[in-house]
């Protein structure tokens, strides 16, 4: 199939960017979206132009590196997939496809479609851990029994890949789904209870400092999340936060 691509090009963080039109030909349905961009880039390189820069790494939907707002949706029109797993058979010959970076003040553009998501890392630095020493001997793993449902819920929250689709989808560029997934994982486990109060306060505080918007419960994040992280996590974090605020 032949496609028209409208791609955001931006030299670096300081420069102004713009949408540039490209044509690609001979795209097959079996290609992933990123392989389609590889085809475009190969053509650009041969022509001596700079290829389109985008984040990607594992190309199997787990590292969370790939992003892209495709036709106005993070990771494109398919559900429960990342851009690297989105296949071109979801598009038709002659389609025009908008490809933009994930947009948020807290995700400044690095170049073209690549954004800086270190704000997510800083939220994690603030408290996304349990303070146990890794070098020492800890108690036997089975000395801490965990209710299976809680363990499963904690796992479900922990499957977040930190891609930022929640922020990109949200009309407010809110990072509540991301932050709440981490808070939930630990809140659900006995190991995480000890630092629960400080953790939620510190992580929410950092989230706010990074300049993400406020959650207005539109639910877009849950729909667009490639890992299906549930909105329940946000409610849980709200609860944890209120509890912690009243306590602290």
């Amino acid at each position, binding site marked *: 199939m032949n496609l028209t691509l*409208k791609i*955001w090009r931006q030299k670096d963080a300081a420069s102004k960017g713009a*949408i540039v039109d490209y044509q690609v030909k001979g795209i097959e349905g079996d290609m992933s979206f990123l392989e389609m961009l590889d085809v475009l880039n190969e053509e650009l390189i041969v022509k001596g132009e700079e290829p389109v820069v985008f984040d990607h790494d594992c190309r199997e939907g787990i590292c969370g590196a790939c992003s892209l*707002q495709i*036709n*106005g*949706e993070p990771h494109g*029109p398919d559900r429960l997939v990342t851009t690297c797993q989105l296949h071109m058979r979801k598009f038709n010959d002659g389609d025009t496809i*908008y490809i*933009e970076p994930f*947009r*948020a*003040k*807290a995700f400044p553009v690095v170049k073209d479609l690549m954004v800086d998501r270190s704000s997510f890392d800083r939220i994690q630095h603030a408290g996304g851990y349990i303070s146990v020493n890794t070098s020492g001997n800890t108690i036997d793993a089975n000395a801490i029994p965990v209710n299976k449902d809680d363990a499963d819920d904690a796992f479900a929250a922990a499957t977040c890949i930190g891609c930022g689709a929640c922020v990109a*989808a949200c*009309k*407010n*560029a*809110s990072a*509540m789904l991301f932050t709440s997934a981490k808070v939930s994982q630990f809140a659900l486990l006995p190991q995480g209870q000890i630092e629960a109060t400080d953790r939620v306060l510190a992580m*929410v*505080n950092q*989230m*706010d400092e990074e*300049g*993400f*918007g*406020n*959650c*207005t*419960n*539109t*639910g*877009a994040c849950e*729909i*667009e999340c490639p890992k299906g992280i549930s*909105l*329940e996590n*946000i*409610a*849980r*974090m*709200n*609860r*944890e*936060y*209120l509890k912690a*605020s009243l306590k602290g």
Partner: protein
Amino acid sequence: MGGLIKSSIARKVAMALSGLFLVFFLLQHFTINFTSIFSADTFNELSHFMGTNPLVQFALQPVLIFGVVFHFVMGFVLEIKNRNARAVKYAKYSGGENASWVSRNMIYSGLVILAFLGLHFYDFWIPEMVHKYVEFAPEDPTRYYPELLHKFVSPVRTGLYAVSFVFLALHLWHGFASSFQSVGFNNKYSVAATKFAKAFAIVIPLGFIIIALVLHLNHNH
């Protein structure tokens, strides 16, 4: 309070709680108005009580006004903050693919309701205040129903009220149920609670519309 409201979650909870308070007020307002379509006397009686009881007038009324103002001001503050959180907009943004129109446009349904409140204050509250606290006119416990009826003579005003209630329904459709999530209520009762909230969002504004229409028709008879 100042420190608490600084965080995004605190603002969100404040928004939810003020919203819930207004929902409760709406229910109360609706209950009284509803009596007007079958018993002018009951309506007069209740209105007289609300209009003259010092507790209502000097304690609940200021709280209510504060609630309304807070909800609006906070709504605007959040809207501005949220717009700033995405400085560069998308060239193409398919918000409709992942979230409902009402949830994405609370500010607009809110603005319509704000405009309606202006009209509503102009129609009832300001004359009422002037009547009671400026002119110090003598209280007639039977004046409320005729005054009410008189307001709905105009088909334009009746129409404006009806349209505003539609926006109120839209606002409630997202806002009421969403407030549960905001205060951290998400458990096995959530589905039922959401259903109740959605039903409320339809029934109450629809009831208001019916009241307006009935009053309009009653007058013409």
